[in-house]
């Protein structure tokens, strides 16, 4: 192991006790090493500062957005009173409506559950290191962003099962458009093999949910109707009929 590797390991927090000793020794006796290490420490610091500056300006944008949203504060009192009365009525109507007519958002939340992992059995404590295995570990741990990254990096990223679970991860992270882009070709594919055909009917259901999530009621209705009226598939049929009652 050369000295540069030691510096990398320092930043990864992965120096062994023995390597730590060597590291300290180099810091005391090797000028080049000290220089290199100091440079990288500076680099780390300025990257952090840059990130914090970016964040500060992002937060300022949130703040501006919030302050622009509350111009009603300058209204006069009597108007406020009038407004609060109508607000009370509106809230009353809204909560009644909400109980009997859930919003599409409610319908989505009520019905969406990321499909369980049926591809890659995960054994706790086992350290298999293929990317696919790790992707499913992340998926099962609800770490969907990480899962997406990993699904993108597997050996064969266009395998139907991989795509399907990637779409699940997108839906779970509120990214319905990406999910639709993946699910639509699976749901409409006529040439799937025996091992993939299962995912097709599931893709249909999740596609309907993705449309719902995206606020595309028209497509959602037609997709749920497709499932509800499908002659041979029974997956989520009742649920689709149920959702349709609220959508139409």
């Amino acid at each position, binding site marked *: 192991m050369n000295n*540069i590797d030691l510096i990398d390991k320092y930043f990864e927090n992965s120096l062994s006790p023995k390597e730590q000793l060597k590291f300290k020794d180099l810091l005391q006796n090797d000028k080049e090493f000290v220089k290199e290490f100091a440079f990288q420490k*500076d*680099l780390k610091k*300025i990257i*952090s500062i840059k990130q914090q500056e970016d964040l500060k300006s992002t937060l300022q944008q949130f703040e501006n957005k919030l302050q622009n949203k509350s111009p009603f504060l300058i209204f006069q009192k009597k108007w406020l009173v009038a407004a609060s009365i109508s607000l009370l009525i509106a809230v009353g109507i809204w909560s009644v409506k909400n109980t009997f007519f859930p919003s599409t958002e409610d319908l989505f939340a009520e019905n969406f559950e990321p499909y369980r992992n049926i591809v890659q059995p995960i054994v706790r404590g086992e350290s298999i290191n293929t990317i696919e295995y790790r992707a499913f570990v992340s998926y099962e741990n609800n770490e969907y962003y990480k899962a997406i990254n*990993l699904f993108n*990096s597997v050996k064969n990223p266009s395998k139907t099962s991989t795509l399907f679970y990637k779409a699940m991860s997108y839906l779970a992270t509120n990214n319905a458009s990406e999910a639709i882009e993946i699910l639509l070709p699976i749901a409409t594919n006529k040439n799937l093999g025996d091992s993939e055909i299962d995912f097709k009917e599931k893709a249909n259901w999740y596609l309907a949910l993705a449309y719902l999530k995206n606020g595309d009621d028209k497509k959602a209705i037609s997709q749920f109707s497709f499932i509800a009226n499908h002659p041979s598939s029974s997956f989520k049929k009742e649920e689709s009929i149920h959702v349709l009652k609220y959508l139409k």
Partner: protein
Amino acid sequence: MSDNNSKNIIDLLKQGDKLTLEKIYTDNREAFINFSKKYNIEKYDAVDIYQDAILVLRENAMRGKIDNLNSTISTYLFAIGKYKIFHSYRLKSKTELMNEINFEEKKLDFDVNLLDEELTNQQKLLKEYFNKLGDRCKNVLKLFYYQGYTLDEITEVLNYSSKKVLKSQKSRCVKQLKDLVNKSYE
């Protein structure tokens, strides 16, 4: 909110998810400003302190310091905020305030705000030249030095063919910066 949920939010923060950040910001802001009123802090200052607290929250999430957080994000955020108020305003009710901070979070680092620090000349130059790097370099360096990814993880996430290839890319990026800095000393 369950632990699992906090864990998810922390993961999202680590990924730099803007929507999550905005939600946290919006959800807790009002309560924090009201809380600050107890200590006679003007709204304007309260917002500033609040933003600093958010910054610390993200920083500690990035550094993996709150991976095992047992409380909700809001509780944690308020703990930071209280600490900030205490430090910026040297209040009379120090003990009162300290007594309120009795979470495990006490052990953690709330002083990670770097924005007010004085920079050395070399650091100033580095900061300027970092912008001149290509996106690929910026990305690798950010993941490694800021987001705490290991070289193995970056190899995977950015689809490098091997760790070795990534390592030589990284050292090229660092060297490019060094050359730029050295040049301006000549």
